[in-house]
Each structure stands twice: as structure tokens, then as C-alpha cells.
């Protein structure tokens, strides 16, 4: 792996974790903890994205050990983003947002079994409460759990994809040209 990509990885992880301050300031129910993973993938491909995803989970785990089992979700995010980048789906908000919504579905499908089998759907307070709501509405246990994850993941991934698309378009060409996949991701090649 080139030195440039090695230098990108820690920065991308730090981006994912630092955005929580921005999210708190606007009081939106988002995590944006896959921003670095998706951005790194769009710049340099899924291998780099997976490295960023694994490290993001590892650092999150230092703060709260229950994040670790969800590293699988970060890996899936990186793979999905890799396909999206190769198809140039970051070229505008009109293509990026639906792609993000698609990832929201896949991410919650992936995290639900983990949440269910490891944590009994109590991953976070929010998920536990929406799961309880789902149960009250008559959904079966696994379905209620999915309902819990889906509600938070859907919007979060769409916003993340939109943000990454905005960043890619705002990058000066000279900088973007130094990353292997960036120009293709925005449909510029």
C-alpha cells in the first residue's frame, strides 16, 4: 500500500469519529460513523475502506466495548461503497442519496442479527426503545429488532453518502487526481 494511502487511513478514521461533534451541534439523530469508511473507499477502493472501517470500530470499542461485533457492518459498508464508487454514483446528489438509502437497508439487515443474537436488541437505548415499540405493534422479535436498526440507519446512510459526494466535488482536481478512485467516483473519467 502506498504511503499516501497509509497516511489517509488514520485521517479517515478520525473524520468518522470527529463528526459526532458536528452532529451534536445540530441535534440530528445521526451517527455519521461510516463517513470515513465511505470517503476512503471512494478515494482509494474497498481495501482501504475496510481498513478504515475496522480501525473505526476498534477505536469506538475503546470507548464502548459493545461496538466491536458491528465491525462486520463497516466491512459491508466499504464493499458497497466500492461498488458505488466504481459505478460513479457519487456524481450528483440525485444519484448519491438513493444509493445511500440502499445502503441504509443493507446496513440494518446486517446489523440486526448481530444486535439480536449478541445483545438481545439492546445495542443502544434508542434501538431498545424502538424495538419495544415494534413489539408493541405486534412485530415478531427479529422483525421488531430490524425495525429498531432500520429507523436509525436509513437516514444516517443517506446523509453520509450526500456528505461524501459533497466532499468529493469540493476537492480541488489536483488533490483528487492523486487518489486512485476519486475521479471515477464522481464520474469525471
Amino acid at each position, binding site marked *: *500500500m*502506498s*504511503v*499516501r494511502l*497509509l*497516511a*489517509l*487511513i*488514520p*485521517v479517515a*478514521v*478520525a*473524520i468518522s*469519529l*470527529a*463528526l459526532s*461533534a*458536528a*452532529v451534536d*451541534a*445540530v*441535534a*440530528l439523530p*445521526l451517527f*455519521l460513523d461510516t*463517513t470515513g469508511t465511505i*470517503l476512503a473507499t471512494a478515494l482509494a477502493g474497498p481495501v482501504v475502506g475496510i*481498513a478504515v472501517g475496522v*480501525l473505526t470500530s476498534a*477505536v469506538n*470499542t*475503546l470507548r*464502548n*466495548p*459493545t461496538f*466491536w461485533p458491528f465491525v462486520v457492518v463497516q466491512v459491508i459498508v466499504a464493499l458497497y461503497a466500492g461498488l458505488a464508487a466504481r459505478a460513479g454514483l457519487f456524481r450528483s446528489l440525485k444519484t448519491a442519496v438513493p444509493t445511500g438509502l440502499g445502503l441504509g437497508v443493507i446496513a440494518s439487515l446486517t446489523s440486526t442479527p448481530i444486535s439480536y443474537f*449478541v*445483545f*438481545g*436488541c*439492546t445495542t443502544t*437505548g434508542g434501538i*431498545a426503545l424502538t*424495538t*419495544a415499540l415494534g*413489539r408493541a405493534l405486534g412485530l415478531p422479535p427479529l422483525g421488531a429488532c430490524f425495525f429498531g436498526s432500520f429507523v436509525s440507519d436509513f437516514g444516517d446512510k443517506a*446523509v453520509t453518502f450526500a*456528505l461524501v459526494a*459533497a*466532499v468529493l466535488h*469540493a*476537492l480541488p482536481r489536483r*488533490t483528487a487526481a*492523486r487518489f486512485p478512485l476519486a475521479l471515477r467516483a464522481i464520474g469525471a473519467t
Partner: protein
Amino acid sequence: MSALHPFSLLAIAAALPAFAWILPAPTGGLATAGLALMLPLVPDPRWGVRVVRLALLTAAPFWLFLRLLHDGPTTVAIGGRITTMVASFVWLVAVLSPDRLVEAMVARGWSLAVAYVFAATLSAVPVLKARARRIVEAQRCRGLSPRGSVANRLRALRALALPLVLSALHEVDERTLALETRGLGAGVPRTPLAAPPDRPAERVARWALLLLCLAALIWRLA
């Protein structure tokens, strides 16, 4: 405890949750949870008590929500496992120093890339977090508030996030140049600077722990 080799500490912190899930619930989970909570108390009880308290505080909300969603026995079964995981990791973070781990990786001949990426991430996170807070404060002085329509708040989020991410990416350029000139891509094996000692007894113990986990897994599946 912190005199143990970093890989030994990692092995213990990984083995306890593994056993919690492999061994039959609820006794398995509760037993490993008990072990994980006693671990910090071993060398220095006063320091250990603080770690145990943090572990219990982190695990407590899960018990609450589990009780909300499940019946008694399931709550105890899952709760025990979660507590083990939480307690092991909280102990690991308290007892393991990152530079020893990095040096251990380098000494063992692990790729310098892996060691670098791990260490540099730990350094980069607090720096970028502080910068994010500064950007938020600067925008607050200009009237950013958590009120308003969702669309407005999304626009505000964009105004906060874009400068942070773009300046961070620009720095990647500078970092790349600095790392290259300091020999990171040299392709020569790096000299370890202060490798932590690895006693043969510890290495044997680590392998034994791994084999024990596998044996338990096979016994459980059979």
C-alpha cells in the same frame, strides 16, 4: 499486570468474551463476567476498583433494556455475556499502553504499515475532534443553533462538516511527503526501539489459552 507482554493482555481480553459465548448460559456468562471483574483488582485493588466501577456503569444500561425486552432467564444469560465483554475491554484499555503495543508489533516483524496505521489513528483522533469542536464554536458565534427545520439543520451540518473534512484531506498530502522523506516507504525492516520483553512462559500460556477456547468450542458443538 502491565508488565505482561501486550499480546498476552490482548489474548486474555479476547479469550474471556469468547468463553462467555461458548460456555453454556447462564452459568458460563456469569462465571466469565465474575472473572473479568476480578481481573483489575489483582495487582492493585485501589486502581482496580475504579476500573471495575467503570465497567459496571457501562454494562448497567444493557441490563435495564434487557429486562424491558426479555424475561428473567434470557436477561441473565445475555447480560452475563455483555458484562464479560464490557469488563474485559475496559480492563484492556486501562492496562495496555499503546506505545508498548506498537513496539511489540514492530519487534514481532509485523508490517510497519499495520503498526503505523494503528498508532497514527490513535494520535489523529483527538486532534481532529478538537478541531471539530473549534469549528462548531466558531459557527455558534455566527448564529448556528440546533433549532430550525430539518433542511436548515442539514445545511448547517454541511457547513460544519465540509471544512473539517477538506482540511483533513489536504493534510494527508503534507503527511505523505513528511512520511516519505522520513523513510516510511523505504522497504527496509524497521529497527525496534524498545521492544517489550516476551517471556517464553507467556507465549506458551497464550497458545494454551487459544487451544482451550477451541476445545471448549468443539465440546459445545458436539
